[in-house]
Every structure is written in C-alpha cells, then in structure tokens.
C-alpha cells in the first residue's frame, strides 16, 4: 500500500519547473492574481516557490490558486504550473483539511439527498437564514450559486425513455452524464442523448458515479482516485472500445488528463476511458470533419455570448462548441475571451474566496449582460450556475442550440 499522497510529494521534486524561463506569460493569464493581491500569481507560487518547498510550503498563498489552469494553458515552455500547484496544495492541506472541503467534494451525495426533496431543498437553498447558518457552520458562502434540485434524475428518465423507432444506423456510444448532469442538469443530459439518438446512435448510459474532480481540486487525492477508478469501471461496463460522450466539459477533462497528470493515477482503465472520452461538441465536430454530421438545421437568428470553461480550454482542443453552434444558420457566437468565470469547481463557494470568484467573473457577467439576446452559453454546469447568478441571464449548454436546430425542441 503506498503512503498517502506519495505521488504529489515525489512530484514536487520532479516537476517541469526547470523548463520555466520566467517569461511571466502565465502571470498575465492568471484571472485570480488579477483581482486580488492575496494570490501572488502562478509563476511566484509555482516554479519559483517550488524551489523553496522542502516537504512543506513556505507560505500559504498557494491556497488562493483556483486551479483554473489558465497558467498551464498559456505557458509556451510546457511547464505544468497549475498541476504543480494542485499537488503542492494537496500536500500542504494534508494535515489540516477543512471539513467543508471534504463535504463540498461529495457531489453525488448532494444530488442523492436533494432529489427526493427537491422543492424543500430548493426552498432551503433559497432561504437567507438557512444559507447564513450554512456559511457560519460549514463555510460555504451565503450568496454562492447553488444547483437547483430536480424531482427526477437522468437515470430515472433514461430507464423509462424509449429511443426513436428509426433504425440505429451508427452503432452504440456510451454517455457519461457526470453527477451534475445526473442530478441537477438533467435536461442537458436528456438533450444530449436525444441529439445522439437523432443522429442514429444507440446510447448506453450505465449507472455511474462521480469523477472525483471536486475532491481532487480540494486536495483529497485518495478519495478522488477511488471515485475516478470506480467511474472508469462503470463507463467500461457500457461496452469495450466504444466512444464515450460527455456533456460535462470539466468532468471529461478529469478523465482525459487531470486524474493522471495531477494525481498520478496510472491504471490501464483510466487510460482506456481517457482516450475514448469525447466532449459532445468535440464529438460533433469530429463527425463534421469526416463529413458525417447532417447540417439540415432549422434557422435560429440569435447572437449568443459564449464562455468556454477553464477546464474545457485546458483540454487543449480549442473551442469546438463555437464551430458547432455556428454551423446552425443564423447563430452568431461572441466568445467571452475570459480565462475563467471564477467558480472554478468549488472555489467560489467558499466563504473566504467568494468575493474573489465574483470579481474574477464580473467582466464575464458584464459581457453576458451586454451581448445576450435571452440566453448565454457555457459547457460546464457549475460555470453556468455562476454565470446565471452573476448576470441574471439564462445560461445553457451548447447542445441546447443543436437540439433545437434539429427540430427536437
């Protein structure tokens, strides 16, 4: 049995920091240091402070990194700055992990508890007094965006759902809903399945748990590793070598690279799932490039502000959703140009980071308010809640536009 956190502890000395030429490009890309001096920036906290870490961190400003990954993405020299910082933070927090950080990583539990009591749960989360008590006791900020519980889960829908009668001409694919897509953003999951079925796929959605991303970003590597490996088994049970499609932008990234790069998970089943994982827009664009995507879209004259989530961008595939949405006649996309919406998974929920997360998101909220014609678009659940709360504009997954353009809604 390896010692807990053996990998990140060892990685601290073996990281890519020697490739850093101190060019400061990461500093210019960081959305957190831009709004608060509490975080001195990715270069200082990463490749520079790393040289002074001998088992423990010399200062704790590292905790203010939101792990959005904008620094790694921007680095022209291949330094994995965000990964380095996530590892160092896990080691730093090992002996004093706040209860709050353990709780907010339990996304499946939250969904399971809230779904049967959806109206009550929603009312409680909308109640100022309840939220104040939660802030004081647990440390989740009273104004932080919270999901809306649904009375039905995605799996509940899927069981009763009848696929179209037309022949399944394209064979099977596995659908990965993610826990938010399973419990809260149920409609996005349903629309994704319906689009895939419309294209002629047989959609298999095995029972599935959480990818562990929220635990990983809170430094709970052991718990996150268990979660992600269990999920790999569940997704593999859908069928050997099948493409796995996800409408949860961030969770797809956890399976593609974060579990391996940050936590050092090196099991065959993770690599197997990771190489088969396609984010839905990425999947549709691949079809389009191969000439296999029907584009008999219904016209939709609308301009939509679009924000690519940080953890989608960090998959290094560009922004496929823009190209896909603009295949629909009449759709014009305005890209936010912002690194992050601020929420960064669970970062913006925390009472001591809430104001920072709001400040990070503010230019995005302003842009959405100014440019929207009724909706905004974003690929990841928590980011949509953050944008919706910050801007007051209904924010949907790109698949909603594709679903509508195929005449399915």
């Amino acid at each position, binding site marked *: 049995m390896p010692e807990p956190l053996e990998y990140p502890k060892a990685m601290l000395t073996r990281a890519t920091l020697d490739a850093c030429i101190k060019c400061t490009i990461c500093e210019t890309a960081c959305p957190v240091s831009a709004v608060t001096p509490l975080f001195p920036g990715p270069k200082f906290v990463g490749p520079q402070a790393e040289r002074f870490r001998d088992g423990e961190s010399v200062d704790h400003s590292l905790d203010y990194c939101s792990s959005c990954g904008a620094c790694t993405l921007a680095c*022209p*020299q291949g330094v994995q700055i965000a990964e380095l910082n996530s590892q160092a933070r896990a080691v730093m927090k090992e002996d004093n992990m706040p209860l709050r950080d353990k709780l907010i990583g339990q996304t499946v539990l939250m969904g399971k508890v809230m779904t049967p009591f959806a109206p009550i749960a929603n009312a409680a989360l909308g109640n100022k007094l309840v939220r104040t008590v939660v802030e004081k006791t647990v440390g989740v900020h009273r104004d932080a965006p919270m999901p809306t519980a649904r009375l039905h889960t995605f799996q509940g829908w899927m069981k009763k759902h009848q696929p179209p009668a037309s022949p399944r001409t394209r064979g099977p694919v596995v659908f990965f809903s993610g826990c938010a897509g399973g419990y809260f953003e149920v409609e996005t999951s349903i629309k994704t399945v319906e689009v895939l079925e419309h294209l002629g796929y047989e959609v298999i959605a095995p029972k599935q748990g959480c990818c562990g991303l929220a635990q990983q970003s809170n430094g709970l590597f052991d718990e996150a590793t268990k979660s992600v490996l269990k999920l790999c088994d569940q997704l593999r049970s859908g069928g050997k070598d099948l493409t796995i499609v996800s409408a949860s932008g961030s969770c797809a990234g956890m399976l593609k690279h974060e579990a391996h790069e940050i936590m050092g998970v090196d099991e065959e089943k993770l690599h197997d799932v990771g190489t088969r994982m396609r984010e839905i827009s990425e999947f549709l664009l691949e079809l389009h490039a191969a000439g296999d995507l029907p584009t008999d879209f219904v016209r939709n004259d609308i301009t939509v502000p679009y924000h690519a989530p940080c953890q989608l961008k960090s998959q290094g595939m560009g*922004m496929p959703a*823009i190209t896909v949405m603009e295949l629909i006649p009449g759709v014009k996309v305005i890209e936010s140009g912002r690194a992050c919406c601020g929420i960064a998974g669970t970062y913006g929920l925390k009472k001591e980071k809430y104001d920072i997360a709001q400040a990070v998101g503010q230019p995005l909220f302003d842009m959405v308010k100014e440019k929207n014609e009724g909706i905004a678009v974003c690929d990841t659940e928590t980011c949509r809640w953050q944008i919706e709360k910050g801007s007051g504009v209904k924010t949907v997954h790109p698949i909603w536009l594709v679903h509508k353009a195929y005449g399915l809604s």
Partner: protein
Amino acid sequence: MSMDSRAVVVGAGMAGLVSAIRLRQAGMDVTLVTQGIGGIQLGQGTIDVLGYVPERVLGQPLAAVTAYGNAHPHHPYAILSADDVRAGVEFLRALLPDTFVGDLERNYLLPTAIGALRPTALPQVTMAEGECTPGKQMVFVGLRQLKDFWPELVAGNVARTELPGGGRVSTRAAWLDLPARANEVDSTPLYYARAMDDPAYRKRFVDALRRVVEPGETVGLPGVLGLADRGAFADITAQLGQPVFEISTIPPSVPGMRLNDALTRLAKDARVKVVLGSQVLCANIDGGRIRSLTVGTTGRPTEYAGEHFVFAPGGFESGGIELDSYMKVSEPTLGLPLWVPEGDLVVADHNAAQPLFSVGVRFDHDMRVLDTAGDTVHENLHVAGGILAGASRWQEKSGDGIALASAVRAADAILESVQNLEGARNA
C-alpha cells in the same frame, strides 16, 4: 477561394497570428495550433525592421534592408525584399489602425528602461514623444511600488548620451508614491496597466504627476498606460496637458500585451480556430506533402489535416530550435534540416553576436523550406518568423520586419498556389 481549402498554422507569435489572419481573410479555413501564448508580449511592442547593421540605422530602414541583404547572403533579408517588408508592415498597420506612428522612411530613437537609445521603425502612438532630439527636456517618473523602472537610471543614461547629430537631451528623475492596488508594495507593470484602465485611478495618477512635473518637460513613464482601455493614454495626456510617453519594461511588457491581445482577438473574431495549449508532435507526410499534423491534445492525440501548413514556432528562445549538451542543434517538431553557421555556436564575449541565434531553416521566396542541396522539403510547408536562418534578430532589431514580411509572403504564396490550381482546373 474554395472554402474547403484548409490551412494549419503553428505558432502564435507575430508571424503565426499575422499569416493566420491573412489566410482567413482570403476565405480559407484556418486552424492555429500553439503550445502557449506567443512571444509578442515579451517584446517592446514596437515594429523593428532593422536597427543595427551593426552600426545604428537611422534613416531609410527599407534601404538598409536591401543593402544588408545584399551584403549577407545567408540573412532572411537576402530573400525577403524591402517590398516584402513594406507589404508585411502595411498589412499589420491596416489590421491595427491608430496603433503605430512612423512611415518606414526613418527609425525613431527611443529610450529604453535602462536609458539606452534604441532604434525602431514603428513605435506605438504612446511612445512617440520619447524621440530624443537636442535640447529636449525630459523628466522620467517612476513609481515607488514598481521595481522594474528606475527613473534615475533612465535619466542618467539618456543625459550622458550624445545624440547622433550632436547635442543631448536634458533629463531629470522623479518618483510617485502611488500603489496600483491597496496594500501592494511590489507590483508588476501589468497591475499598474490594469489600474490605469479605471478613469478614477487615472485621475489620481495625473494629480500626483502634476506635483512632480515642471512646465516644458516631456514626461517619460513606464509602459503601463492602460491595457484594455485604449483611450487611457489620450486621457492621461489630455488631463496633464503636457507631452507624455511610455517606455516598455522587462516582461510582462504591457505595450506588447496590447498588440498580442489585439491580434489574437482579430484572429478569433475572424474565426481562425485557435487551439491553445497543445504541442505539435509530428507531421504525417505522403508524397512530399504534409497531410496532417499530429497534435498532443489531452486524452489522445488529434490529427489536424490540411492542404497548406505555415510553420512559425519561433527560434531557439521559443523552443522552436533545440540545442543539446553536445552542442548539436535540431528542429524538434518536424525534423527540418537546419542551416548552421561554421565555428562555435556560443562565444564567451557577451557583447559579440552569438552564432547560435542565426541557426534556422533555409527557405525560398515562397517561404518553402529548402534542404542543404537547395531542394524543397515539403511542397505545402511554408515557414515564417524566428525559425528562419541567418538573422541575429535581437541584436539587429530585425525580428518584426522578418516576421511580418515572411508571414505575409507565406500566406500569399499559399493563396497564389490555390489560385493557380483553380485557374488550371477552370482552363
């Protein structure tokens, strides 16, 4: 232009961005792949065509380009003509109107952050008042919380420099005590630039500036005069009522960031598909042509297929060329043949030219890569920018001229080849 013509551009520096935009404007489907943000924001934010040959070039930089190319057969300017440089610069200027001053008829001589006088063809509008002429009175103003700009150093060095036509600038140094953000004692230029985007902060800044500036003085400031708000400079100048200029600092260079942000925005708005954060692993070649590039996206590699490729990864400093511990140089991505000067690549004298920087690929006027025998390596591969052999760009101050000329030439060669093909099909 047939819309199914696809180009893949590698690199997001000046050469990559400009060639991608030019191809896209012609109607081509363009994907730009880059491992990170390009190097524009590590530079001065000026357009340097040719500054030292090795003597300082003051008049007619384009004439100097022709003369330098004639005298140095291995230099990019031996293949790229003065007309190519002009075309490149004019294309950029049309993309970014109201950004630069200068007419390519002369070089400006502007103080750097250590007070050296540096020649450049096109300074940004915000820098133009820094031109050094005899008898000019300048005050350099630093900020106590910004350690990258020391006004005494700039003022002292500028004052002791005799100007090319004779005479000197009279200088003075002054300081402001004005944090960019509350409780921050050590800010980078970037935080000041972001603060300057706020009109209320600008007002406080100008109020503080008024107390240290004297009538008749031209005010030299660190390059922090606004990042997103392109009206910041004009506002500060108008409020102060005296000529102001900014001097780029060590990275992050805010004037460089403004150029990078503007070009990146133009590329994205034109729907160049920018794939940021992934490295090109190799090219897939068939019959002398590149069919696709394999890119190391997360999860598994992705193939980016195309009919045309522009390779602009930068030079040695960008990782576009590698040097191993046996002093062997290589081009690590596509394995292109390199031109390597004879003799030691690195010399001990810090003031001497380092031959290592002139290592690069040889090319023809269509920006196709040539091997040692002078034959085309891949018919549909074009190169631009820092990867080109023969220049010591940092020393010659020639990097932007080479990048712009080669980027526009590469794009135009591609567009010409498509037109020729279509012409042949129609005939």
